[in-house]
């Protein structure tokens, strides 16, 4: 962004200052109805967004369910120290990073590839139909997605019965009866595939929007120059969406610790807890379910701070490489 020219500051006499103050007061009085319109939204942000930020102080207190907030003792950094020493810390960190990492490696390129494929389609009705179909899972609730996965993966309820469709396919391919839902090793893959199923179609929208802005003449010129389709994609289409790709990548890096947490809570069970517990699910389970408020607030605060560092770093890196960055 171009630097805004600084308006030259002129020293004002006290009288002029008073006049200005009076003017702005009149201005604000004129706008009283606008402030009234703003009131509900401002109250909303104060109560539901800023008040909880003040509640972050709990991270430095020995506060849990059943104790009054004012009786809770200040314990300084004890919550953080015991969290870092806790054996579950490394596990949470590992699970969070693996789930995010797998999403980054396997899920992230998928909408880009899909958008590039769709971009090659010249038959409009076919393109529309495919788009219509692949956007559907995005709007369906996570509970439905999890429930369907559950039905597809379930083990037979009785001898002689059939299991879910995917359970049967795995059985035919490997000859083994695998309880995917209860296996810690498979958990990461279940989450990844659900993600791909639910979001990869919807993820194409932003790339298709970027592609819609590409001038058709560029392709025509390339054809005249003898470029084949592969070269057209490499030298026209990809550069056209590269800044969008970087933007999306920054967003993803920034939320590297935000594992799709509604999804994890749904798919979590006692059998896969060693791989399914991440920072978010831990905060829910220990904080909301067990009532360990101070400790889990500390965990949540730790996560928030790392997240901010991630966003800032990714943004800084993007600017360094000549991209516009997010802010």
């Amino acid at each position: 962004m171009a630097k805004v020219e600084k308006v030259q500051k002129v020293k004002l006499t006290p009288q002029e200052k008073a006049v200005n103050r009076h003017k702005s007061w009149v201005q604000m009085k004129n706008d009283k109805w606008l402030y009234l319109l703003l009131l509900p939204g401002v109250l909303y942000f104060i109560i539901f967004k800023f008040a909880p930020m003040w509640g972050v102080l709990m991270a430095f207190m020995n506060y849990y369910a059943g104790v009054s907030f004012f009786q809770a003792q200040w314990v300084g950094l004890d919550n953080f120290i015991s969290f870092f020493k806790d054996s579950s810390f490394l596990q949470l960190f590992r699970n969070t990073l693996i789930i995010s990492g797998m999403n980054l490696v396997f899920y992230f390129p998928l909408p880009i590839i899909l958008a590039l494929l769709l971009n090659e389609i010249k038959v409009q009705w076919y393109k529309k139909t495919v788009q219509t179909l692949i956007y559907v899972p995005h709007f369906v609730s996570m509970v439905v997605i999890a429930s369907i996965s559950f039905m597809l993966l379930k083990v037979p309820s009785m001898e002689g019965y059939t299991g879910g469709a995917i359970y049967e396919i795995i059985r035919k391919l490997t000859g083994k009866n695998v309880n995917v839902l209860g296996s810690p090793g498979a958990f990461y893959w279940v989450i990844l595939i659900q993600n791909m199923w639910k979001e990869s179609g919807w993820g194409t929208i932003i790339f298709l929007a970027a592609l819609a802005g590409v001038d058709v003449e560029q392709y025509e010129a390339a054809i005249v120059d003898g470029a084949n389709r592969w070269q057209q994609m490499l030298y026209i289409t990809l550069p056209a969406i590269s800044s969008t790709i970087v933007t999306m990548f920054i967003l993803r890096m920034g939320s590297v610790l935000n594992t799709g947490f509604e999804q994890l809570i749904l798919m979590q069970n006692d059998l896969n807890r060693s791989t399914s517990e991440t920072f978010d699910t831990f905060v829910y389970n220990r904080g909301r379910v067990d009532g360990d408020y101070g400790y889990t607030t500390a965990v949540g605060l730790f996560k928030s701070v790392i997240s901010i560092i991630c966003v800032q770093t990714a943004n800084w890196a993007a600017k360094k490489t000549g991209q516009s960055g997010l802010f």
Partner: protein
Amino acid sequence: MLSIKRRSVGDWIADVIIYVLLTALALLMVIPFVYVIAASFAPEHEIITRSLFIIPKEFTLDAYKRIFDPNDYGLRVLKSLGISVFITGVGTAIDLFFSTTMAYGVSRRHLKGRNIIMNCVLFTMIFSGGMIPTFLIVKSLGMYDTYWALLLPGAINAYNMIIIRNFFAELPDGLDEAAQIDGCTDIGIFIKIALPLSMPMLATFGLFYAVGHWNDYFNALLYLGDSSKYPFQLILRNIVMLSNDTQVDPNVLMPQETLKMAIIVIGTVPILIVYPFLQKHFAAGVMVGAIKG
């Protein structure tokens, strides 16, 4: 111009691969839904012997009868559906009220303090108090175990509010000047001019907020203690994923697996009904801004 475009063999092969790939992917994404719908109309003995099918051999409504039978699942399911409809309707109205009033306020360029407010809003997008502090605030306001907890804490989505603000900011300035001369207050301009001019935008965000409320289960899990207050998505989860009742008598098969399929269908159908409307709107590019922030 197009006459020089001669299609090579490579082009044909590429086309075939692209079409096959896209068709396969699109089918892969919808087949699970088709299967669940088919299975919900199949008799229980079919679903426990066939693992995947698109058309049931026999057609029956037994599962749906059991779901809506008041002596069976009926009361629980219908009550939760009613709760979900209520939350979706009232919640969407509340969301739109909070989002548009605030968006209009901060869209007025001359307004003193608007930059401070916007910076605060942006700050909440990168930092939040977290789940437990928010939960305790909601609890201390007396909203725990009430529907207020599902309606108010998520009333404004900061991304959506910013897009709505951008929309209001682009309304021509002359309009409100004229209205002001006619003696209209800012609230009058907002209701009589700004809102009617932005109906398509309101419909878009209304739909997206509504889908969000219908699909939401986590707030209910977080803020509701009494399971008789659960909305439909939680009942769906409990029936499909938590109940593992086995058949009492293998000779008289009660719809159980098919019942699970049927209840998944009921959770999906409202989305499929509004889907054509949704599709019409997100094509307009509104959501692109939402994703980018």
